């Protein structure tokens, strides 16, 4: 048993490496049971329970440095908000995040475009790939191949015959421009190549969502927003007066101050989450949820316990669970399984070495330090 304790550390290195390589190679084939934790449920259920058309505020307070951790959850939450047809108002406290966050909002809104696609079905993957090459090189010839027209809306999880919606379509189609084709995909033993003929936006700026941009002031800004949104943000990022956005049938209809929002979601890399709680929800009373980096999460749990926030999405794990809940597997989903397996390995190693240690007995002098 002694040797188990003095095991060459290179064996451990090898175990870790093999496991992660396997998990990465078999990424698509690994089905991971996901049990969402109650903090994540807290955010999801709160948003899911809102009636369509409720105004919500989304504060995205991070910058490219925390992008890897926060962008997946930001997108996941946005997708959920859009899918529920809520009226979304976006903003940020961070000047460095201004354009970056805007891009996240816009591209997510684009995912809800109605896509008219020509579906060309092939029997083999080879034929489909060849066709794709043809679309790239000789679009005219490619257009002559017989096709069926269908409408797809990935955001709303809708697709017409001959294809059926499945989550894979999301990553396949979300960046395909008009006139271009997506990579072939297999469904029911057939291989389909989808060529986008037209994109019809279904989410309209100013009506379904808006982006107020950035304003400095942190806590003071939040207090001002609690008094009057129009004074805190006289105009949105593009110069449209916010009063105009509050007109009939517009995104801010019936909203003039923070308390009028039905929900606040904060995706934050810094202290702004706490500021939103203390100066915002505590003072003006509205439910809110927080998404933050894994390091910050423990600091926020006391607020969850005291019910000042409905839930927390913490780091990659939170994003992963949320992606599962809204059935859109994205970046978090592709990385978390490998991470998890390596993590479990470490736990097993610790258990194993302690069992071995106890069996050898503590009386013997320790071997390798």
């Amino acid at each position, binding site marked *: 048993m002694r040797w188990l304790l003095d095991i060459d*550390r290179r064996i451990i290195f090898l175990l870790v490496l093999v496991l992660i390589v396997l998990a990465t190679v078999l990424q698509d084939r690994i089905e991971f049971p996901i049990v969402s934790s109650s903090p994540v449920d807290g955010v999801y259920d709160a948003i899911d329970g809102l009636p369509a058309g409720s105004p919500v505020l989304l504060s995205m307070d991070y910058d490219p440095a925390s992008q890897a951790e926060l962008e997946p959850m930001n997108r996941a939450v946005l997708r959920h908000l859009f899918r529920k047809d809520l009226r979304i108002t976006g903003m940020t406290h961070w000047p460095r995040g201004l354009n970056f966050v805007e891009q996240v909002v816009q591209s997510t809104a684009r995912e809800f475009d109605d896509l008219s696609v020509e579906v060309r079905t092939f029997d083999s993957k080879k034929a489909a790939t060849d066709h794709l090459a043809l679309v790239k090189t000789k679009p005219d010839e490619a257009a002559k191949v017989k096709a069926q027209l269908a409408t797809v809306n990935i955001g709303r999880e809708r697709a017409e015959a001959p294809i059926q919606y499945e989550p894979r379509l999301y990553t396949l189609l979300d960046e395909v421009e008009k006139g271009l084709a997506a990579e072939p995909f297999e469904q029911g033993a057939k291989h389909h190549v989808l060529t986008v003929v037209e994109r019809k936006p279904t989410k309209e700026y100013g009506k379904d969502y808006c982006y107020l941009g950035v304003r400095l002031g942190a806590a*003071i800004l939040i*207090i*001002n927003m609690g*008094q*009057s949104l129009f*004074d805190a943000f006289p105009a949105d990022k593009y110069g449209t007066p916010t009063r105009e956005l509050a007109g009939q049938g517009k995104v801010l209809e019936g909203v003039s101050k923070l308390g009028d929002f039905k929900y606040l979601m904060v995706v934050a890399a810094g202290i702004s989450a706490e500021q939103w709680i203390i100066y915002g929800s505590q003072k003006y009373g509205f439910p809110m949820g927080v998404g933050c980096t894994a390091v910050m999460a423990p600091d926020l749990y006391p607020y969850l316990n005291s019910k000042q926030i409905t839930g927390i999405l913490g780091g990659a794990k939170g994003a992963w669970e949320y992606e599962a809940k809204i059935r859109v597997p994205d970046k978090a989903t592709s990385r978390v399984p490998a991470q998890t397996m390596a993590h479990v390995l470490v736990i097993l190693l610790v258990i194993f070495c302690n069992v071995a240690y106890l069996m050898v007995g503590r009386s013997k002098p320790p071997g390798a*330090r």
Partner: protein
Amino acid sequence: MRGLSSHSRALGFGLGLGLGLALALALAPAARAAEPAPLPKPGWFKAFDTPNDAGQKISAEWAGAENERVEAKYVLSISTRKTGPFAEAFRGPSTTSLKVEDTATFGPWTGGDAKAHHVAVSPLATYRTQTLAALALDDGPKANATATVAMLLRLPKRLQWLHLFGKETLDRARRTLADAKVKRVADLEAEGVQDVEKDLAAIILDRPFYVTLEVVEGERREPVGDVQEARARDNAFNWKKLNNFLAMLFFGGAVLGMIRRARSNPDMYLRRIGGLEAVDEALGRATEMGKPVLFAHGLETMANISTIAAVNVLGEVTKRVAKFDTKMICVNNDPVVFAVSQETVKEAYLHAGRPDAYNADDVIFVAAEQFSYVAAVSGIMMRQQPAANIYMGYFYAESLLLAETGASTGAIQIAGTDSYTQLPFFITTCDYTLMGEELYAASAYLSRNPMLLGSLKGQDIGKAALMAIVLVGTLLSTVGIEWVTKLIEVYT
């Protein structure tokens, strides 16, 4: 005709007056009902230099009033002349800008009238340095016709500024700009002239400003009080940071006082610090094995206190190394730390009476960046197999990489860091670890210099005070006495 006309006019006038009066009387109740609630009327209004700032702003303060509501706005206007013209500098709902909420300006000292309002406005937002520069540079006739037109268009503004600031201000601005060789306003954006804008700002701010307050709702407008005068000044003390200042005086006093006492009373009890006792053991082992000792500072620069403490430890360790006649390699990542370490090691050898043993190449600058440093130091560990590794300073992710590699070579490892995120890794992989504060105590402990030991005693007094504050403060705030928590707020 004339008589008639005057007659009829008088008649018409009388009739009109009568009718109007009657109408007014008849409609009066209705009109009063349609009229919205009266505007808030603050009882007093004053202006003064904004405290705790760098002389950029002036403050206005006024009493809270009845009927304050979001629709009714307070409007502040400023001017450089008592008679105006005034320009609007602030507009906000009358329910906001309460003084008690303005901790950004006052820190904890917002007290007094709970309903009073406070707003700090920057004259530079109204009278912009760019405008001053434009006017100052535009001087003199222009041959170009378009320039003349442009000048004419700007004339009202120029006249207004001349009226507000006087010719002397423009002259001062002109001199400043000429000194900096600025010829066009766009030049102000150029590199090397950023300070000119500061100078222009100082020229604009160098005068009293006049402030008026009005209450505005829709078309209605009512002035509050008289025109007030204030001047923006550089403040000498930031009262928001008073608690910080007092804390510094207290801790500083405790440390310095104890150092003073230690001079007359050098015998002092000091608890054992295992990690430091182990230094001699490690050096002894290295001597026995004929292998070198490796000393690594963390990643921080020389301006970081942990690094300073690490260099102090380095000095003490080197003295011992010289005594033991062992070899030491000191690896660095920051060039300043590297140079300082070289000096420290050299002097320590000299101090130990072994200047011959000093070799400048023992202190090496191995790499300039975090992970190439890791790669290089790991390489040194694998190839030279030091018998002891000493890590002192502020570490980041490299801590575990170094310590785990060091452990695999079988070296005795002693670490000391105040970077609490890395402490877990040192604790688990090193033989001895100085946690947090112990790093700062290390040089005192090793040198046994009474003055340094005295400062440790001072630290203990500080800790005792902190413990007392925590315990008493929690007790007080639990029974509802809040002022202790106010005392420790941080304002910037």
